[in-house]
């Protein structure tokens, strides 16, 4: 069992309009953890807490057993971060921007950076102001991947990027963690990206961690139930973790597949829920059914 690289213990952040409630999270080495959740559910806040950009009101974040708040600056050397929509000084060339940043990292690998830039189709002589959002993300990724950080923290690195690049990026990321000493935490809205090479999925809803499960466990746990409206007997909403009704029928998310199979006896269609089903239906909750 690889050692735990990153642990959140009861991490809490309160703002007037938003709260992240006591969050516990574990990330062992050799794993890719995908973070999902609606806009405003707290994904970016969680990653910013980890990077020390936002100060927690309670709880501890540990990196290899060390408190990130105490060892913050030194530990950040071993973590690489790509923010949501990264921004750079527009009049500078990418080479100069790299120069200004590389100096802080003893493990900076110049040859590797050049290779990444070529793979991503970026020219070091370009000025940052000429880059589109997708290209800026690629540049930020090149800076993050050019050193051998033990933890990669990526905030929506795939937004605005095309499917081919996204798939190649995920392949690259999964190659990074093969030695089981490094791990990756990234947030995304694109559930189909998570279904490929991501080992564990965490889902945030309204500032709470709704679940954090391995991909295989997820597949075994959740079922999608589809059926006619007549099946929605009073009280049944309690067994669903999310429900969506249309004039023609309903679609619901449930954990207890066996129980429902017996209850509906073939009158409803039960199938394995995809990640997208889980996220969409759980995001909706059962409020509509009440």
């Amino acid at each position, binding site marked *: 069992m690889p050692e735990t690289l990153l642990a959140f213990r009861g991490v809490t952040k309160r703002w007037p309009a938003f709260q992240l409630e006591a969050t516990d999270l574990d990330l062992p080495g050799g794993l890719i953890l995908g973070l*999902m959740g609606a806009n405003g559910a707290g994904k970016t806040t969680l990653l910013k807490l980890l990077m020390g950009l936002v100060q927690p009101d309670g709880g501890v974040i540990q990196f290899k057993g060390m408190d990130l708040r105490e060892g913050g600056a030194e530990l950040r050397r071993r973590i690489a971060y790509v923010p949501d929509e990264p921004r750079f000084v527009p009049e500078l060339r990418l080479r100069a921007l790299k120069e200004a940043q590389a100096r802080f990292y003893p493990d900076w690998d110049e040859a590797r950076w050049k290779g990444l830039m070529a793979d991503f189709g970026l020219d070091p002589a370009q000025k940052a102001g000429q880059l589109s959002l997708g290209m800026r993300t690629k540049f930020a990724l090149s800076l993050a991947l050019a050193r051998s950080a033990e933890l990669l923290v990526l905030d929506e690195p795939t937004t605005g990027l095309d499917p081919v690049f996204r798939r190649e990026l995920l392949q690259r990321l999964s190659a990074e963690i093969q030695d089981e000493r490094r791990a990756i935490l990234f947030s995304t809205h694109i559930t189909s990206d998570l279904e490929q090479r991501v080992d564990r999925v965490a889902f945030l809803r309204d500032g709470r961690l709704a679940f954090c499960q391995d991909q295989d466990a997820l597949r075994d746990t959740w079922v999608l139930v589809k059926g006619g409206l007549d099946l929605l007997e009073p009280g049944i909403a309690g067994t669903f973790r999310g429900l969506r009704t249309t004039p023609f029928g309903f679609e619901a998310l449930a954990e207890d597949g066996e129980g429902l199979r017996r209850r509906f006896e073939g009158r409803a269609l039960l199938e394995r829920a995809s990640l997208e089903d889980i996220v969409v239906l759980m*995001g909706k909750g059962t409020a509509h059914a009440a």
Partner: protein
Amino acid sequence: MSPALELQGLSKRLGAFALHRLDLAVPQGGITGLVGANGAGKSTLFKLILGLLEPDEGILRLSGEDLRAHGPRLRARIGFVQESPTLPGQLRVPELGRFVAPFYPTWDDAEFRRLIEGFSLPLKTSFAKLSQGNRMKAALSLALAHRPDLLLLDEPTSGLDPLARREFLDLLLEVVQEEHRAVLFSTHITSDLDRIADHVAFLKAGRLVLSGAKDDLIEGWQVVKGGEELLDTPLGRAARGGQRTDLGLELLCPAGTSAPPEGTLVARPRLEDLVYLLDRPLEEAVACSR
């Protein structure tokens, strides 16, 4: 019936980049999805349709009429929604309607009010303070309220979370069906197109490499997974692209070429597989393994 939008041999050169003789028909009453890598020419194509760029050669027709000759009149019949709408942020949704209305002779205020009510948009919140999902819905209502023949959507879902995205797509399906409109929809999230598109066009380096009805496209191809020996079968020789994975070869082949040899897995491609695997050189993959 003439298509809502028709391109014939449309070309445009912009420095090192060029759109090469595009032929495309966007039929009425359906959603056409436009996919392609960053920089493949999607934005350039939209700019040509919107008259922000002049084509070097080729024909552009809107419902059979020449868009280049009658630009200003015809363009009032196009509705356009951008990823990040540029609208005055301090205005509330009803005020936005009054702001945009004078630009369109066919503006229908009753329709606008019906739309914003149907989308359950908050009426007293300024545009800048709306959630991203609601901002896109507001932009969609503005684009629909002048009853356009053609709706152009430029990556409308890229900033949305899965829940907001599905809601947006469902609304889009509804408004297309009820009014028999044509939609041209660019996106990086191919699973959205799996869900709602009737037709798909695939741009690659300024060329249209694939276009047609989505179902025909998907049925016209198969993804074959197997060992190295696949390369020496007729199926392997017919492959139009492929990649090497941890499990072996993954090839994209035209459907019905020949029966797959024993021990291979055959699957219908998702759009993403098509986009990813088509024209991915096999030689490269082979060279990698040796």
